[in-house]
């Protein structure tokens, strides 16, 4: 189930290169991003952090460490500022509203002081990331640290064709600084798991520092307080019972619907049916989700439920405020990542009564629980590349990154995430609960430069932390990975065409659910998907599966 040890998805670029894809789009430069080159990369030696012991330990399969309270007192890791003065510039993203500029931002000023540098950040909202990044590349006036855009505003991965070539000419190969034992100079970077570092390998070298994440991906959050108050059984045992539950909790006259959107229905019904997590590799055949019968069935059921009025009626609007609806009890089920947990507590209007928990998805026909899909992004959220510079400068920047990767339990982590006590948060129930200034000022996006291994921790809510941990522990062992991500495969066609192919699926799916197209339109979507590049991607990946001998 887990990826074979020595091969990464970039190492297999050779397959793509052999197909002439990369050479066709390159400008004649020798292509260094080959399987041979990437296979032998000297990855940083993993030395787990021993700073604190988790209250609930994670597992090697991918359950994260969990903490019920923030360790008291926090461990102070750094005695001196990691920076030596001067300016460090970085291009980062943020998923939160853009924070106040440095002049009005005490957190940022304090961060500068603690880092010992003047940190100049270009903070880009994640929605504009892809366009801003293209502009940055075209302008060629690069900051020291750059987070390449990997996703488009609609969540579809951005085309990264030619990204390796760009990195080869403009960015630093970090292998000699962090490869093997040399990473020991930066203990917090050494504590980042190897799987995350693998996602930074290009052109035969380590080209970035990763932001690691857990494999448990999207889950269904349930408003237990409301559903319980209605006296409805929150644990359906089959699809029929699930639909019945949705019917019982929906009351349009009271502005209350079961689901925030129909997309989440397609997502969970496919899991009930045992559908493909993006791709399915079985019996020597690679099949994409859109081609499966499970997909068609799920779309059909979701369309019926939408028509019946079990979904929030405004959910197709762009940027529909789904989290607000969930917080306000306008919709009682929402699909989101485990990282959304604290936000739900911070932003609901139900007050003390607010209670949520992850829903376990039953199998379609009943009899047991469905296997849950792993995160499609793999074990990394993103990575950060370093502009070409002399060795001394790179070492200084890595030192800074080491500070920014201080693990949970340290004083440095507490400050980096939550700011300063009193000003940005108050300690409640053993955890830093941010106030408004804290939420606004700390959203600098520095957590996307580099980060310590993720943990499960919901400040001030030990019971919620426990729920999240128990859920991960229950679902991770037999969770379903995306075979392409798990196998570490790479196709240049896939990385270029994902926006187009993803668009065909999501637009078509919406058209059917909203009743603008009949269910048979799925066949047309499949034909388009194949013609627009899907068939080529299948060829690329199939060759790699066969070459690797993955069954």
């Amino acid at each position, binding site marked *: 189930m887990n990826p074979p040890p020595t091969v990464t998805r970039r190492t297999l670029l050779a397959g793509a290169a052999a197909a002439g894809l990369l050479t066709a*789009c390159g400008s004649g430069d020798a292509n260094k991003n080959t399987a041979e080159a990437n296979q032998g990369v000297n990855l940083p030696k993993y030395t787990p952090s021993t700073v604190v012991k988790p209250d609930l330990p994670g597992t090697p399969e991918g359950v994260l460490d969990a903490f019920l309270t923030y360790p008291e007192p926090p461990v102070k890791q750094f005695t001196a500022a990691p920076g030596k003065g001067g300016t460090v510039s970085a291009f980062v993203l943020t998923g939160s509203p853009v924070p106040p500029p440095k002049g009005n931002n005490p957190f940022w000023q304090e961060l500068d002081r603690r880092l010992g540098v003047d940190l100049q950040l270009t903070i880009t909202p994640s929605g504009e990331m892809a366009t801003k990044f293209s502009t940055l*590349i*075209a302008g060629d006036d690069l900051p020291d640290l750059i987070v390449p855009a990997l996703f488009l505003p609609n969540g579809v991965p951005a085309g990264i064709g*030619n990204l390796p070539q760009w990195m080869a000419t403009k960015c630093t190969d970090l292998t000699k600084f962090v490869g093997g034992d040399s990473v020991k100079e930066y203990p917090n970077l050494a504590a980042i798991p190897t799987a995350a570092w693998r996602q930074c390998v290009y052109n035969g070298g380590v080209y970035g520092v990763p932001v690691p994440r857990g494999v448990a991906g999207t889950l269904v959050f349930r408003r237990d307080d409301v559903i319980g108050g209605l006296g409805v059984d929150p644990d359906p045992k089959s699809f029929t019972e699930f639909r019945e539950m949705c019917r019982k909790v929906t009351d349009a006259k009271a502005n209350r619907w079961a689901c925030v959107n129909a997309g989440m229905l397609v997502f969970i019904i496919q899991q009930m049916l045992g559908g493909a997590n993006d791709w399915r590799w079985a019996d020597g055949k690679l099949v994409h989700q859109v081609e499966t019968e499970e997909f068609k069935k799920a779309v059909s059921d979701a369309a019926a439920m939408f028509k019946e009025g079990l979904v*929030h009626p405004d959910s197709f609007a762009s940027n529909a405020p789904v989290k607000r609806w969930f917080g306000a009890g*306008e919709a009682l089920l929402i699909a989101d990542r485990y990282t959304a947990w604290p936000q739900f507590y911070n932003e609901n209007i139900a007050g003390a009564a607010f209670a949520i928990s992850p829903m376990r998805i039953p199998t379609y026909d009943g009899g047991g629980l469905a296997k849950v899909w792993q995160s499609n992004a793999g074990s990394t959220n993103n990575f950060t590349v370093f502009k070409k510079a002399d060795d001394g400068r790179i070492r200084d920047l890595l030192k800074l990154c080491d500070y920014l990767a201080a693990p949970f339990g340290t004083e440095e982590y507490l400050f980096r995430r939550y700011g300063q006590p009193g000003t940005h948060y108050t300690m409640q129930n053993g955890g830093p609960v941010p106030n408004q200034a804290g939420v606004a000022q700390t959203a600098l996006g520095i957590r996307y430069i580099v980060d310590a291994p993720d943990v499960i921790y919901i400040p001030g809510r030990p019971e919620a932390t426990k729920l999240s941990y128990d859920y991960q522990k229950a679902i991770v062992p037999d969770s379903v990975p995306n075979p392409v991500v798990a196998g570490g495969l790479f196709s240049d066609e896939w990385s270029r065409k994902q*926006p187009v192919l993803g668009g065909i699926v999501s637009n078509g799916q919406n058209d059917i659910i*909203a009743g*603008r197209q009949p269910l048979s339109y799925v066949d047309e979507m499949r034909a388009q998907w194949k013609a627009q590049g899907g068939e080529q991607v299948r060829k690329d990946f199939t060759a790699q599966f066969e070459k690797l001998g993955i069954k």
Partner: protein
Amino acid sequence: MIFAILPGLLLLLTFHYLPLLGNVIAFKDFQPYLGLVDSPWSGLTNFRVLVEGDPYFLNALQNTVVIMLLQILVVFTVPIALALLLDSLISERLKRVVQTVLYLPHFLSWVIVIAIFNELLGGSGPLNSFLRRHDLGTIDIVGNAAVFKELVTGQVLWKEAGWAMILFLAALSRIDPHLYEASSVDGAGKARQLWHITLPGLRSVIVLLLILRLGDALTVGFEQILLQQQAVGLGTSEVLDTYVYNNGVVAGDWGVGAAIGLVKGLIGVVLVLGANKVAHLFGEPGLYQKDPR
């Protein structure tokens, strides 16, 4: 004098003329990571989508033309009517208040206008909540593909009609009041005055604005439509501008996007030149004319 022009000229050069060079992308297989210079030339391949009649492109073209006609028909004429109505008000104060109320929405950004429409008319908005509570059946306006074009036109009308009206009001105030007095002496009623004095007095302004409007007639509200596209699907909502964005910027097919943009610009030029010519035929000065000598 020259120094007074300079900032504006620089602005024009930097943001209007310099970017024109970027149109070279239309003839290249542009890859952002390779840059403008290193991206390979691709001849006219990017224009194939136009010639071969890609169904998605044709769909976008059709939607654009329908919305364009709706907008010229409704959004161009309503401000004239509004101006006439407002001009007929006697109380100066009431006139000012009405004028202000009408043109204020112009200063709201599209994001806000659409949020207002969605909040008020959406499935969970006050209108439909009210209907639902009284068992009257809901009205599906926002997110209903069948009425999308009308909704879009309605939004433009609400946002821009009051603003567009101001120019016509100015033109109205320049009509010589003696003409009205003379015509009443001759026994002309309100309708005849409108037809024989007011509208001829507005004619040159109407023609001028119409020609200018035709220049970007194919631009039918990129931001406005993009923001609502997801709710109604691409079938009814894809227009040329969003097609360029979705296929060029989002999907990374920059060359095709630039090619379509280029052709769209050329059509705009042809429309302006053509309309100007027609205006001359009707004896109007139009946008510009040859030196009469």
